[in-house]
């Protein structure tokens, strides 16, 4: 059973042309699927559709073995598929790092102590304990990115959906992110423009073009991966 199975997804933002025109995607367990494509090709849109933040105009979303259509259907999907947003400032809305990382676990109904234990174990896993009591808006760009990853991992998802995770990261932080992601057991969908980042992580690559996903024809020998 694939983790995600999206069939023939069509989507248009109000007042604009169709972004997705029949995109299909299957994600199997253990895969790290990279998605490339132009700006505005609909890559982020697709990730949002996967967790039900946007509803497709046509097509079906099957996640964890069940077809999902309503808001209620997607609530459990969001627990098992952690979306890491493109802009960390959208995601870190709690005042302190510990509170932000604890937000997910508390919403899942964990007690304070359980949530705090989860915060500590995730921050230790990512080597971020030194940020625990910092104020989120005073973090650097690289720190914010790693904390958003911690916040999503704290919910113990089965799948990670990463939207341009290397955006605004310097080489050092990017190397650290790659190292962390390589060590994680989760299946991933990674939207990224960065060919080297993709080649380090991806087990398979799809290209988003003209609203559909297809296997890319490598144009240069650095591409793909």
């Amino acid at each position, binding site marked *: 059973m694939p983790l995600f199975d999206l069939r023939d997804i069509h989507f248009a933002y109000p007042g604009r042309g169709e972004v997705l025109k029949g995109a299909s995607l299957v994600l199997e367990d253990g895969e790290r699927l990279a998605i490339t494509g132009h700006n505005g090709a609909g890559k982020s849109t697709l990730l949002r559709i996967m967790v039900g*933040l946007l509803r497709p105009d046509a097509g079906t979303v099957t996640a964890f073995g069940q077809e999902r259509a309503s808001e209620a259907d997607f609530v459990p999907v*969001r627990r098992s598929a952690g979306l890491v947003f493109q802009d960390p*400032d959208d995601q870190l809305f709690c*005042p302190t790092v*510990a509170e932000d990382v604890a*937000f997910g676990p508390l919403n899942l109904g964990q007690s304070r102590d359980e949530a*705090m234990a989860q915060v500590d174990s995730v921050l230790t896993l990512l080597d971020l304990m030194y940020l625990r009591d910092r104020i989120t*808006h005073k973090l650097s760009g690289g720190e914010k990115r790693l904390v958003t990853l911690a916040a999503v991992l704290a919910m113990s998802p089965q799948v990670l959906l990463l939207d341009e995770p290397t955006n605004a990261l310097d080489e050092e932080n990017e190397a650290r992110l790659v190292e962390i992601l390589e060590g994680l057991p989760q299946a991933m969908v990674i939207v990224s423009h960065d060919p080297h980042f993709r080649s380090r992580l991806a087990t398979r690559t799809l290209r988003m073009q003209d609203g559909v996903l297809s296997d890319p024809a490598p144009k240069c020998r650095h591409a793909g991966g």
Partner: protein
Amino acid sequence: MADVLARPVAARSRHGWLTRIDPRFRVVAAVAFAVVAVALSSITALVAAMALALALMGAARLPAGPTLKRMAAVDGFIILLVLMLPFTTPGVAAFSIGPLVASWAGIWTAVEIALTANAVILALMALVGTLEPVVMGHALHALRCPERLVQLLMFTIRYLSVLHDEYLRMRAAMRARGFRPATTRHTLRSYGYLVGMMLVRAIERSERILGAMKCRGFAGRFPMLETFRAGRADWIFAAGSALALLGLGGIGWVDAAL
């Protein structure tokens, strides 16, 4: 472990003893002080209240110069009122400037208002102004303030700097293309665009934030992590504040009776 969260960043030990008092007690004390100060109408009692506020400033180890300057900045709001009152209140004439006659009653009312306002502001700065904004949000939540208001405060704290940065980036981008403000239609229109764009971006951002919150299981309730524990020092502070406020009330009552 949990009480590490209760005191986010604000190093409670760096300043005077007042900054080590439980934030909840300080918020309550500040409100109580304001209520008492506003209720007082005896000049003697108000001078005592001012002295108490100055003492609080000392206890919080606030630098006197800048703090008093900030307090004076607030006077800008009442300066007109204070200057007008002596001339508009009927009573025994004190002095006159040309055709304008100042009354004693008016002068005393003006002094009363000025003292009240300054004492309250100063006490507020010493008691609440020394709190990290986040801690104040937590304290208000612990004091059972309406959850929505606390959430609004927390979001404001969190996103003010993001919006400000966005504003600065847009301003820089305008300047980079040779924009210089002048009194022209072009300037006004450009500022209009700037403000409009800020609003649009803020709305879009708020939608993305809501999406991010839903992704992490948000269902309308905000789990807040805070544990304040009142110690002996806090209760002593509470008792001391209550006594001081009773004292102020007593002075006012005696003064009125005489």
